[in-house]
């Protein structure tokens, strides 16, 4: 699993470097302020990491895992809301460089999360400790993306 994390990390590292370079080169860079729902989504994802950890250790694992799954789904819904908010403000994939990175990076993150949710639902066949690594990684990755996309200026 750690190897897989390394590979996924490289994907995001490559895209981060593209972001850094693109931002540095562009004289007309306009920054989009962080949408409020991004914080809510972060909270949802962190909560889901918490429920996963509790579920791993508890005899009543199933309900905690269901909670994790539901929180993950809520996160996905939250992301769609984030996209809708951006679109309503007229910010689409090709509107600005910042927007294009926001859409791309959140979409890739979301795809990986959906994959994780599918695997969580097989939890009887896959070792929970291994899924946990992946899940927490995605939570950390989301925080990282928020910092890179919105905090750094």
């Amino acid at each position: 699993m750690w190897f897989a994390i390394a590979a996924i990390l490289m994907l995001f590292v490559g895209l981060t470097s593209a972001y850094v370079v693109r931002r540095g080169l562009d004289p007309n860079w306009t920054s989009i302020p962080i949408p409020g729902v991004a914080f809510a989504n972060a909270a949802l994802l962190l909560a889901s990491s918490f429920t996963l950890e509790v579920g791993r250790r508890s005899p009543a694992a199933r309900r905690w895992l269901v909670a994790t799954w539901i929180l993950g789904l809520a996160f996905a819904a939250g992301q769609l809301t984030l996209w809708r908010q951006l679109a309503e403000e007229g910010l689409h994939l090709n509107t600005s460089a910042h927007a294009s990175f926001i859409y791309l990076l959140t979409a890739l993150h979301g795809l990986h999360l959906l994959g994780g949710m599918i695997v969580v639902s097989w939890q009887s066949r896959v070792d929970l400790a291994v899924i946990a690594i992946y899940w927490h990684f995605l939570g950390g990755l989301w925080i990282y993306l928020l910092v890179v996309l919105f905090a750094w200026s």
Partner: protein
Amino acid sequence: MSGFLRRYLFSTDHKVVGIQYLLLSLAAVLVGIALSIIMRIRLAWPQEKWPILERLMPAAFAGGPMTPEFYLSMMTMHGTIMIFFVLSTAPLSGFGNYFLPIQIGARDMAFPVLNMLSFWITLLAFGVMMAALFATGGAPIAGWTSYPPLSALGEIAGPGLGLGQGLWIVSIAIFCVGSLFTSLNFLTTTLNLRARGMSLLWMPLTVWAWFTTAILALLAFPVLLAAGLLLLLDRIGGTSYFLPAGLIVSDQLIPNQGGSPLLWQHLFWFFGHPEVYIAILPGMGITSHIVSTFSRKPVFAYKAMVAAFFAIGFISYIVWGHHMFISGMSPYAGIAFSISTMAVAVPSAVKTFNWLATMWRGQIRLATPMLYSIGFVSFFVSGGVTGVMLAMPSVDIFLHDTYFVVAHFHIIMGVAAIFAVFAGTHFWFPKMFGRMMSESLGKVHFWLTLAGVYAIFMPMHFLGISGGLRRYAEFTEFAFLRPLQPLHVFISIAAFVTAAAQIIFLFNCFWSIRNGRRAGVNPWEATSLEWTIPSPPPHDNFAGVEPVVHRGPYDYSVPGASRDYLMQTEGGPE
């Protein structure tokens, strides 16, 4: 699922997956060679008409000689198919899948289902690439390096850059995923599934080669995927990752702005340089293994060989700028990349010394696998020294984008790495199929190919030194290029003969499966674990009995032993 489908098509047995990969790369190399023949026809006789070819591919000729755009599409697909579907599959996913588990004493890979998936994903990628080859509007013409803006602008920048280029990107993206699954398997299996006694420093060098290659692939392919996604978005999403403002193409003003073509080059070559080491590292492992076996001597300085794999692997990540000295990148960055490139040549040289030292005072048996491995050493030196030359930016100013570079990478990738595949095939064929390949056919093929590829690629150095530029559909337009035409004709004829000689190898493979001399368990008197099991091996490799390893992998000519080789499973003093 019916028995046949489960046993042969969708098998999770690593041996079947390995053979599937080898067959895929065989199909790919035949396509790649056909494309190169077409290229050489055009280069040698650019103004000629070819009625037979025209009947097969009318769009390529449009009533006259072969069009330049058709040449460029052949060239693009040749490079792409050879690098991805031959050099990144056969040495690693082909032989590695088959022999890594056996050589460490495991029953199968750590994730057999993932392994099967990785093959089918790679096959899918190949299918999409074939679709790109035959796409309406033509195959892409932007080279295997696919630099934007050319590759990002679509049809208005040239034929094949619409659908063809799009399919190309999709195929590459799919390939990246397949490669990821392979890497995960190789790394996990090597670390977790070794048999009792098989410590890391007692693994054959082939396993170390596959292990480090898998690390390279794990970390490099995602960056290519990232680049491909960005390029795709620039093409269909209206983004401007690579497209700057103010482009005028075919009299149209392109609306994108703010992007950087150099960004693609950085991302691509960050992947691209480790990629070429992915192509060669397994070959180095195979060469060490075979040179040792057929010199009846241990590999000289085994630990240094392992360290060299890691050094090459690590340094390969910090040399990518040597593809970009005159790209517009800062000249000072060029200095840094030049020094790091010189550094990566050092462990490669160490390996070469060690192969020679392994042969020194050996008892060399010139069976066909050894012939090819000797060929590998020769080509590795020939191609390697021109790499050292190109690492000097001052020299690169003149030689960049000339045939000198084409000679360099063909000798290293298209010849040395392929010779390692030939060597591995002859060496492991008895184990895989229970029969020996024909030694006499092997020797004929070896000589024809050895002489043939030197005849093809040595003259290219002279083409380059004379200023002969690559990716040119013909040399007729420039006074400084026209005198070089006889070299092109010579090269093309050498290429046709050498390509024809490969039929001997193909025939040898397929004929020997049925008619080769039956092989025993250990026809080469080799020491590693694959030579302790039947030929071909049973489904779970070791027939339920986990091997126990008592010694290192290269105990040849141990003083005091009754035989000049001791299997890894044999007890006694180490």
